[in-house]
Every structure is written in C-alpha cells, then in structure tokens.
C-alpha cells in the first residue's frame, strides 16, 4: 500500500555518496585504509549508532595520531542501515563492491547483521560486530570451505538470557517472572534462552507477551501480564520501547523489578522513561566503575571528546576497531589475510587485551566474556549491589 523503502534508500545513497566524495577529496585513496562501520545512524536505534561511532572514532583518532598503520591513515566509513534488514542488505552490497574497504566493524543490530551476512561470506570480507548478540549469527558466518568471516567481541543472547535467569533466581531469589519480548531475532533469542534456563532452575514464567519495534501502546499486554501477578518482569528488547514499557507498567499498576539485556544500556532509557525506570537491572559487558587502568585512559579520552559517560557499546566498538586495526597492521590491508589473522586469535593467550577485557574467538567466531549487572537507582545507572560472582 505504501512502499517507501526505495526512495529512502536513494536518498541515503545520495547522502552517502556526497559524504564519501568529500572525504576522498581530503586525502588520496592510497594514503588511507578504509574500514566500514555500518550501524543505525537514523531511526529509532540511532542512539546506539552514535555510541558505536563514538567508540570507533576514539580508537581511530588514537591510531592516526600515533602515525597510523604502516604509514597509512585509517579511515572509517559510517554507513546507515537503520537497524533494518532491508537497508542492511543494500549497505552490504555497497561495502563488498568497494575494493578500498578491507574490513567491517558492525553491524549494530542482529537482524541487520543477519541480512548483510550472506554478502560478506560470499564475497569474502571480514567483519567484527561489537554489538550483535543473536545466536543465529554463529550458524551463518561460514563460507563453503568452513572459513568464518564474521566474528564478534560481544556475548551471545543465550548467554545473556541464561545469565539473567540465574541472577533473578539465585541472587535475588525471585520465583515468578513475566516475559515481554520484542518480536524479532534479538528478542526471541533472549526469551528462548531465558525460558530454557528458567525451566532448569524451577523459575516460573507466568506470562509471555510480544510487542514490535515502534509500538507505542503496551497497555493490553501489560494488563494481561499484571493479571498473572509476577514478581519480576524480563523485557527482551531495546531501550526506546523499554522506557515506554516501564512507564506504562507503572500506569497499569505492575510495579515489579524490571530486567533487561544489553539493549537497555543507554542513558536515553532513563531520560525517556523517567522515574518508573527505577529498579531496572541489566547485563553489561563493561562497567566504567570497575575498569582496568588501560580502560581508565580510554574513559578519559572518551569524556574529553564527547562530554558524556562511556557506555558498553562504545567500549566494545573501541575494542572491535582495535582488533580490526591490529589485524590490518599484522596481516596487511588484504581481506583474506585479515580474516586468517582474526581466526588465529583463538586462545586467551593470543587474545587482544582491550578495555573490555581479553578478546578472543572460538571456532564459531564467538567470544567468551564476563557479564556485569547494572541497575537504575534514583534516575541513574549504578553497579548493582549484588553481582553474580
């Protein structure tokens, strides 16, 4: 009825073309090595895109200020996929067809990454996603020869879902939980892992409802969940909807601790949702309050440049860019060689020591990392008083 995808793609392509043209003018192609950073820079997930961009840009500034890689400057090409699979598919074909791009840090959202993945695997360009946590990615990142092209330095949804169920049950001792999930790859992945672990623990899931991205009215589902009298609510989704859910839950009288995964970790969650967001717990791969000395240096640089607190997405993107640049430095600006180098980072000893801890990949390109728990208290994110271990 109302097909608006194509004109928008054209507009975005035109804008990007303009951007690329301008940046090419400032430095000739031979002096720079390009990495693509596809993420959402417009649309409702743009807040995350800004975080990814911020983290990557701090790393690139740092590298270029120290003389670049083998005398060449690194340049990031920021491409907007709006976290939409159809936009991501378009972006992916422009990335693989641009020979000057040697690697990818992205995509941001799992559904966008999954849509872009076939092109990357087919054409052979290595990607590290700092944020896409869907389990499905691990099964779709190999080419016919079994080579992995997509890596990640973030934990998977099954880890987060399992972790949250454990935390609710073992640490907080709550026994009845309602699940409210976004009906997409991310939300369903989280929900399923959570449900499986809950069953194992004897944690009762008293109600399970879905919503979709961009919804504004959650009262029908919340009214239904409230009737099941849960002690906690797990919201498997992202912060823009999460903030509204917190607000509306209070309005329908469902006042229980709320739990979210990495998708909630954004200052806008509190700004949009206001006071009802208090008592929300979330998993985070990075906590600035308990960071290493190296990480403290990054936190300072980040604050100086952006005048705000570091969130985990920026920290993870900073590390993902760091890994990619190290691979370029060691293996040379060649897509296949970079991939081989990345695949070789397969033990903690060979791991890349970043601000989020040691990054290394297993046989399916995934990484193992600890999770921390943050919570919202009096309108601020603070480390939760009780951690998992």
């Amino acid at each position, binding site marked *: 009825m109302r097909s608006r995808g194509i004109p928008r793609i054209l507009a975005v392509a035109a804008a990007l073309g303009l951007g690329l043209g301008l940046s090419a003018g400032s430095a000739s192609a031979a002096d720079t090595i390009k990495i693509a950073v596809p993420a959402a820079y417009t649309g409702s997930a743009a807040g995350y895109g800004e975080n990814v961009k911020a983290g990557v840009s701090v790393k690139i500034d740092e590298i270029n200020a120290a003389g670049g890689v083998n005398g060449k400057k690194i340049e990031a090409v920021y491409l907007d996929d709006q976290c939409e699979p159809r936009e991501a598919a378009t972006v992916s074909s422009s990335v693989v067809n641009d020979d000057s791009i040697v690697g990818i840090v992205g995509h941001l959202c799992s559904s966008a990454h999954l849509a872009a993945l076939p092109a990357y695997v087919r054409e052979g360009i290595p990607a590290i996603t700092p944020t896409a946590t869907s389990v499905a990615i691990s099964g779709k990142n190999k080419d016919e020869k079994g080579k992995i092209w997509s890596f990640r330095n973030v934990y998977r949804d099954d880890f987060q879902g399992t972790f949250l169920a454990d935390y609710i049950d073992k640490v907080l001792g709550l026994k009845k939980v309602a699940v409210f999930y976004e009906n997409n790859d991310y939300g369903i992945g989280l929900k399923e892992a959570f449900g499986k672990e809950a069953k194992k623990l004897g944690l009762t899931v008293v109600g399970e409802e879905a*919503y979709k991205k961009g919804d504004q009215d959650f009262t*029908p589902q919340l009214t239904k969940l409230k009737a099941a009298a849960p002690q906690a609510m797990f919201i498997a989704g992202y912060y823009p909807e999460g903030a509204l859910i917190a607000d509306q839950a209070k309005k329908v009288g469902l006042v229980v601790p709320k739990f979210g995964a990495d998708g909630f970790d954004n200052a806008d969650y509190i700004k949009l949702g206001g006071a009802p967001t208090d008592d929300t717990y979330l998993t985070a791969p990075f906590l600035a309050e308990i960071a290493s000395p190296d990480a403290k240096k990054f936190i300072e640089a980040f604050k100086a440049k952006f005048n705000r607190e570091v969130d985990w997405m920026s920290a993870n993107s900073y590390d993902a860019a760091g890994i990619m640049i190290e691979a370029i430095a060691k293996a040379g600006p060649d897509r296949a060689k970079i991939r081989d180098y990345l695949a070789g980072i397969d033990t903690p000893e060979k791991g890349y020591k970043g601000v989020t801890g040691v990054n290394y990949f297993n046989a399916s390109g995934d990484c193992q990392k600890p999770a921390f728990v943050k919570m919202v208290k009096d309108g601020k994110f603070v480390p939760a008083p009780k951690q998992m271990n």
Partner: protein
Amino acid sequence: MFEQQLVNGFTLGLIYALIAVGYTMVYGVIELINFAHGEIYMLGAFLTLSCISMGLPLPLAVLLAMLATAAIGVLLDVVAYRPLREAPRLAALITAIGMSIFLQNLAMIIWGSRPLPFPRQALPAFFAEPALRFSEVTVTWMQIVIYVTALALMVGLNLVITKTRTGTAMRALAQNRTAAALMGINVNRVISFTFALGSGMGAVAGVMVSMYYNTMYPTMGYLAGVKAFAAAVLGGIGSVPGAMLGGVALGIAETLGAGYISSPYRDGVAYAVMILVIIFRPSGFLGRSMVEKA
C-alpha cells in the same frame, strides 16, 4: 481485565479516529489519500514540544501547534497537490508519499532522529493519577482528557460540516466538484479549509499521543497513519462519523486481539477485522456505496 482492555482500546481508538477524520475529509473532497497526513500528526507533537521549550504554557503551545500544522496542511496542498489537481490520481498519490518522506526527514534534521520524551514538567502532575476506579478498572485523568478533547472536537467538526456555509460547500464539493464550482463555490478555498481542519485535528492527536505515551519520534506518523487510514476505510472512506466509528472499532479490536488472542498478531487481528468488514460491506460501516466515476 476485560473492562480495562476496553478502556485502553477505546482510548487508542479515539486517537485513531482523530487522525482518520483527516484522511476521510480530504478523500471526500478531492479523492486523494493524503499519505503525508501521518507526518502532520507527528509535526503536531514536535511543534508543541518546541513551543513548550520556548517557555509557553501547555494550552497555548497546543493551540499554536494546531495553527502551525493547519498552515502546513494548507501549504502541502498548495505546493504539492494543487498543481496536480487535473493530473491522473496516481500522480497525486505518489506525490503524497513523497511529501511524507520529505516531512519525516525534515523532522529528523530539525529535531534529530532519537525519540524525545514529552516534557513532564509541562503537564499537571495529576494527569497520570487514576481519576475513576471501579474495582479492577482504572481510568487516568490523561485518558479522560483524551476522551473529552476527542469527543468535543468531533462534535465540533460535525457541526462545522453540517451547519456552516463552508461545511455545506465541502459537502457540495464532495458530491460534484464541477457543479459546485458552477454554483459559485471557491473550490480552492474550500479545499484549503478542509486541509486546515483535518491537519489541526491530526496535530491534536499527535500531541495527545505524545503526552499519553510520553514519547515522540520523527517516524511515529508512519504506523499511526497506516492504522488511521485503515480506520477510515473501515468506517467508510469519505464519511466523518464513519471515521470515528472505524477508529474506535480498530482500537478496540487491536487491544482485545493483543489481550486475548495473541500479542505477536496484534496488528494482524486489527487488519483482519478490517478485511472482514470490507468483504461484507465493501463501502465500510457508514460509507456511501459509490458509483465509480468515469
């Protein structure tokens, strides 16, 4: 729980209805589906926000936003649709989609693409408090404000259409534009008036939604626009009371669908109801059975 779901669905439905009258009035007069109407609704919310951040009190901010969006609606017609009045209908339809994308992106440039909260301090604190409580059912003051505003606007609109000279001219235009022009009706002025009226109502819907849900973002007009369009079709496109009925029916169907059938199929349930009605009553609840004009 059932009564609570009805209350929630009724609130949502009234908002759809307010947007739907904008579609239906414009369709009635020039037979154009104004797809940019969802963006008018979105602009209503953002302009109110801007007025409030300039320090204006809420009622004045809403009034100014209404006038501004009414002017934008008229401008939209003058710039984009009037030059195509005699062109094939498809040309105007595509232009409408173009204007929708244009306005959406304009809003992203002006206000940024991230969702913004409605400034809480501008709202009286009691708005979020329960106003009525019958055992399990609560109705908040905000919901009552929505009911009163929406119903008052619709009664007012109906009076304008049935009792005033301009309203009579609008109905004449809907019946036959050439004959209306021959009777001395200033066609373009009446069309501008229609756009202004519909846009103003859309703006109020936008403000109320952003207050009720406490958020606004540049793409919010898309889904609301599609739903309201469905409501207009359900009620019988071209019929103002039909749009109101269609909006409320759709809102309640959607809420009950999410509450009792399956929340992943929430919108599916709403559209299924619309399709069923259209199968058995092709012109909607209150639509005239139209004879296709040559």
